[in-house]
């Protein structure tokens, strides 16, 4: 199953995907663009006419006072095929056959996967895994992986942009913000909404690795332009159909965007002092 995140409603026309991940205000966290719930509902109806599926992003972290409104939104959008969530409160609002657990950092081994899977139809495993670790999930029904894109690597309830500008006695204006650490060169997108999120720099991708991985693949489009999204989805779809993942590797490598392999081939270091900063 190939799913693409909707950052532009024109993606409705994208024929190379099995379905879409779409988000709306108040409940969605992982998608980059959120649409009014009315627009989402229209989108769902049209997608269903095309015999594809829609996954609703409900990955916010919810406090008790948020839950009533969240339930209203989920009820309003109950025609979606699946709800992707991380906060366990959502389990009381969505039946098991519609649940996709988006594990963020929490499902990093098969033991935890098995427990979570008992209560969900699909589980998106944590992307901070090595290739060897990811391969192990291929044996599990219902595992979902992020195949392409960027994701939150930091999620705060604090308003870290507007607070900063207040401290600097400068007006905070909407814009595209990134942060660069003083000893490093990577630029990490930072976005303030109800809280603040920092995203992975560049676009992570799996390609040649996919021959050994789950074929339930989520493509996260973040701020990619529509034309590029369509090309990327097409490349992944072709690779899955033809089994030619080396060609996919070549296509993504040559794509005019910053790409990386995340932590796929990095050895995690658990103690300080082993590797210095910089």
């Amino acid at each position: 199953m190939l799913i693409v995140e909707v950052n532009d409603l024109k993606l409705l026309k994208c024929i190379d995907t099995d379905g879409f991940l779409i988000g709306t205000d108040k409940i969605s966290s992982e998608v980059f663009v959120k649409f009014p719930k009315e627009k989402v509902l229209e989108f769902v109806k049209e997608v269903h006419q095309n015999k594809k599926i829609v996954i609703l992003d409900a990955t916010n972290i919810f406090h008790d006072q948020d839950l009533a409104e969240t339930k209203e939104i989920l009820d309003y959008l109950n025609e979606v095929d699946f709800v992707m969530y991380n906060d366990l409160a959502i389990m009381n609002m969505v039946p098991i056959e519609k649940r996709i657990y988006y594990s963020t950092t929490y499902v990093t081994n098969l033991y935890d996967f098995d427990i979570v899977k008992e209560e969900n139809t699909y589980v998106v495993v944590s992307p901070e895994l090595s290739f060897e670790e990811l391969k192990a999930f291929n044996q599990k029904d219902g595992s979902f992986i992020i195949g392409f894109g960027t994701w939150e690597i930091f999620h705060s309830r604090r308003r870290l942009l507007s607070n900063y500008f207040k401290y600097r006695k400068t007006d905070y204006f909407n814009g595209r913000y990134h942060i660069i650490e003083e000893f490093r060169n990577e630029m990490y997108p930072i976005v303030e909404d109800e809280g603040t999120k920092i995203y992975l720099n560049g676009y992570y991708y799996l390609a040649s690795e996919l021959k050994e991985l789950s074929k339930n693949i989520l493509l996260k489009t973040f701020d990619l332009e529509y034309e590029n999204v369509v090309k990327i989805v097409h490349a992944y779809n072709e690779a899955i159909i033809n089994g030619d993942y080396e060609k996919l590797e070549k296509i993504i490598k040559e794509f005019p965007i910053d790409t990386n392999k995340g932590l796929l081939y990095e050895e995690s270091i658990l103690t300080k002092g082993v590797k210095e900063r910089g």
Partner: protein
Amino acid sequence: MAKIELLAPAGNLEKAKIALMYGADAVYVGGKAFSLRARASNFNIPEIKELVEFAHERNKKVYVTMNIIPHENDFTGLDEYLKDLEDVNVDAIIVSSLYIMKRAKEISPKLEVHVSTQKSTTNIDTINYYKEKGATRVVLAREVSMDEMIHISQNTDVELEVFIHGGMCSSYSGHCVLSNHMTNRDANRGGCAHSCRWNYSLVKNGEILPKTYNIGSKDLMAVEYIPALIDAGIASLKIEGRMKSVYYLACVVRAYRMLIDKYYETGVLKPDYVNYIISEIGKAENRITNVGFFKGIPDSDGQLYDNRSEIPTQEYAAFVLEYDKELQMALVEQRNYLVVNDQIEVFGPNLSSNYLQIEKMIDFDTNEEFEIARHPLQKFWINMPIEVSYGDLIRVIKK
């Protein structure tokens, strides 16, 4: 209703005992496996056993953190470890992994299971989920406000544990992997590099803004919320900092102990007393503090900008090892610069603050008098007209 628990961190056996001696009702420690804070000098099973015996003799408790988010190869020895912890009568384990939680219920049913703050629990439905899985206590996310805590407490019978003092993740705990991506150090397996406390530049629409950008948060100090937390029925008040010093632990634990006891005794905390407690904590606290999320989402006052968070504190001078009643001398171990004629304060678990002047210092090894104690861990005798005992602390009164 049971009296609220004061729960302190401990990075080693000495710190754990000091925390209990100074008034903690329970301590939480990391074992050699499955624990965050990889750099803390974590406990082996014999040490945990010794600590549990020490704690239980005093009607206090020991919790062991097993709150890593484990990868496949981290599970080696899990069953044996759980059994060992149960065998040495640990009171509870603090976990993040649902599998470790499940396995603990199967392998070591006498161990209570507490859900770690790494799970960032913010609502009642999630608490109830963990209850169904067998947890008896949930550590709430530090993002939960006082009003939210009251609401949660009124609507669940699961014990709630709340952080009241110490360092805070700027992110929802468990949801930050900055360290993983910037340094390859896995924040959720004990390797956090504290990337949120580093200096950054902010780039707006492609242009680097001139001043340093920071995302780190000030440390938490919730002294003023203790009465509300007690009244709300919170089960446990938790101090952060398994890496902190003996002196820090003694001062902070003692201060909160006094505060809690005063509120139970009198039903009220007068502003003067709260200020006194804050000043006591201030003698050990070396970071800028704030009330975090207790009063709602923090504004810019809750963040660390421009300056490093540490405020040097050099007041802590010596640790008391023993007392010679006849000679009225205390054998102490040096922690910071101490000079003859310094005015000092001596205090301890069973000793309220006493003030005196150093008149004489005699080196333990050479038996010679000297004027300045400048060597860390140097043992020496000082004049001490009041009876002190092991674990009492000496600090210099700032002029």
